């Protein structure tokens, strides 16, 4: 639990397409039955969680996410080139005492502005994405979305997390991006527990190993949900046992479940699933509590 009293459960996977969004959406629905819950879509390059809630209505204003990028005040620039040498991202070029700033390559660290001896750089906000909030029958949905063509997904992820923290929910379920590099790292940071969604395939096992490494590296307790159980015959349960990570749930593969997933329809009217999701949520919450006490 964090300072605001929110328990944060991150749903991640390593491999894409294992069912993160589906599991996250259902965990959030299960949570919302007993406590104020927010589903936070941090897969800002490909946000899809809100798509499951066709009757959701906006419950607040969309907010732009921006980074502070430098703008040159030419009258003050002496052409010393210190800003270009300071920038580690190659976003400023100094050619013959003339500075050219590539605002799209800038990460907004502010190092150039601090380095400039004549205060010739002024910071100006540049939009890199947006967050939007809606309500689906008592469940809050918060979505981060990066502008197409931008590369600063982590900025959008952090802004979305910040807005989620201000929602004062008791439970925050994060739908994280695939992979184990910076977007996934930022998405799991600050979580109390990580639910890793995997499927019984060699591809998924390989990528799950990296995701477990990431969770361990950040010291966040984690458990595996085997989704599409029976879809492949790779021994994922044996793998989890060898890795010493608990399997906290199994969702059997059925063609009709795949079909409702394709149409982004919730698994309502599938009582076996509801029960399994409740179990997964209970285990994740227990894991988060143990992690906090540790």
């Amino acid at each position, binding site marked *: 639990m964090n300072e605001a009293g929110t328990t944060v459960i991150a749903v991640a996977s390593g491999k894409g397409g294992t069912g993160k969004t589906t599991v996250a959406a259902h965990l959030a629905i299960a949570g919302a039955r007993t406590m104020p819950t927010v589903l936070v879509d941090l897969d800002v390059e490909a946000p899809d969680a809100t798509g499951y809630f066709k009757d959701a209505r906006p419950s607040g204003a969309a907010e732009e996410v921006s980074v502070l990028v430098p703008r040159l005040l030419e009258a003050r620039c002496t052409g010393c080139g210190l800003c270009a040498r300071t920038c580690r991202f190659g976003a400023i070029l100094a050619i013959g005492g003339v500075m050219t700033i590539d605002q799209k390559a800038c990460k907004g660290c*502010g*190092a150039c502005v601090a380095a400039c001896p004549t205060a010739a750089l002024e910071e100006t906000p540049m939009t890199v994405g947006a967050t939007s909030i809606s309500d689906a029958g008592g469940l809050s949905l918060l979505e981060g979305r990066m502008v197409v063509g931008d590369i600063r997904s982590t900025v959008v992820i952090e802004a979305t997390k910040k807005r989620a923290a201000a929602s004062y929910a008791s439970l925050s379920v994060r739908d994280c991006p695939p992979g184990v590099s*910076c977007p996934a790292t930022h998405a799991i940071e600050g979580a109390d527990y990580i639910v890793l969604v995997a499927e019984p395939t060699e591809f998924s096992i390989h990528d799950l190993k990296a995701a477990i490494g*990431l969770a361990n*590296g950040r010291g966040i307790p984690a458990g595996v949900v085997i989704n599409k159980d029976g879809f492949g015959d790779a021994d994922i349960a044996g793998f989890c046992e060898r890795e010493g990570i608990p399997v906290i749930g199994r969702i059997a593969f059925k063609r009709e479940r*795949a079909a409702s997933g394709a149409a*982004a329809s919730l698994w309502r009217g599938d009582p076996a699933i509801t029960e399994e999701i409740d179990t997964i949520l209970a285990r994740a919450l227990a894991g988060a509590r143990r992690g906090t006490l540790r």
Partner: protein
Amino acid sequence: MITVSVASGKGGAGKTSLSAAIAASLGAECVFADCDVDAANGAIALGATIATREPYFAGPGFTIATSACSGCGACHAACRFGAIEPVSGADAFRIVPELCERCGACMARCQTRAISTYEKQAGELFVSDTRMGIRLVHAELEPGEDTSGKLVALVRRRAEAIAGAHAVIVVDAPPGIGCPVIASITGCDLLTIVVEASASGIRDASRLVELAESMHRRSLGIINKAGLDADMDERALAMLAKAGIPLAGRIPFDLALRSAEESNRTWASVDCESTPKIRAALAAIKSVLDTLKEKR
């Protein structure tokens, strides 16, 4: 040399399976560049044996020497990425490497010179032989590293270096539309967009289409996992048609295809109900590549 990149926006849409099948249909003259460096599955899909390996260095990282830190917090205030946190039980700060963007703003502000840079291996790059004679360039990024785009560029450079003048390089891109995806499709001769016939697959692919248009990439579409939902099948077709992207094939949702990699095969050699559709799609892609080659 011709480069065909395979991307989808959504994860799990079938990029790696399709890339491996394209490579298998082209044969030993092609080089497979697995650019999904944080979840690389090309080696599993093609059955690889590593031939050479080299360390990957991402550039300097930053570290604070606790003994030299006065605990003034200037670095903490300077960091815009939340990557500097107090050390518990000491009047000092530390850098969280997983969150550090390596900008150096902290080092510039430190009054006691407690911050220094260090070189850290961020991953490894491999050139492998595969059972079909196709050479594979792939990499493993350390979990939590933040320079996947740079490693993607390196994988592509290595693939170009070992490819012959008439070779085709098949680039298997990561999911999403961010920095490593841009690095995977930059300068490609043909972008194959895999559209999963699902609500999220179509939505994510349309963001990729927007990116591809802004980068002026020649594209074609493959619809995958068709037949689960008739409405989604229609919408996937309509999305590509609206964007003016030609359709190279429609591949059904077929469990027989899913098990290809576990039986040491690719979609190109699995014998099942979907085989005619796979063959047609691969032939369509090959004919486009042949036409592009003639123009070289």
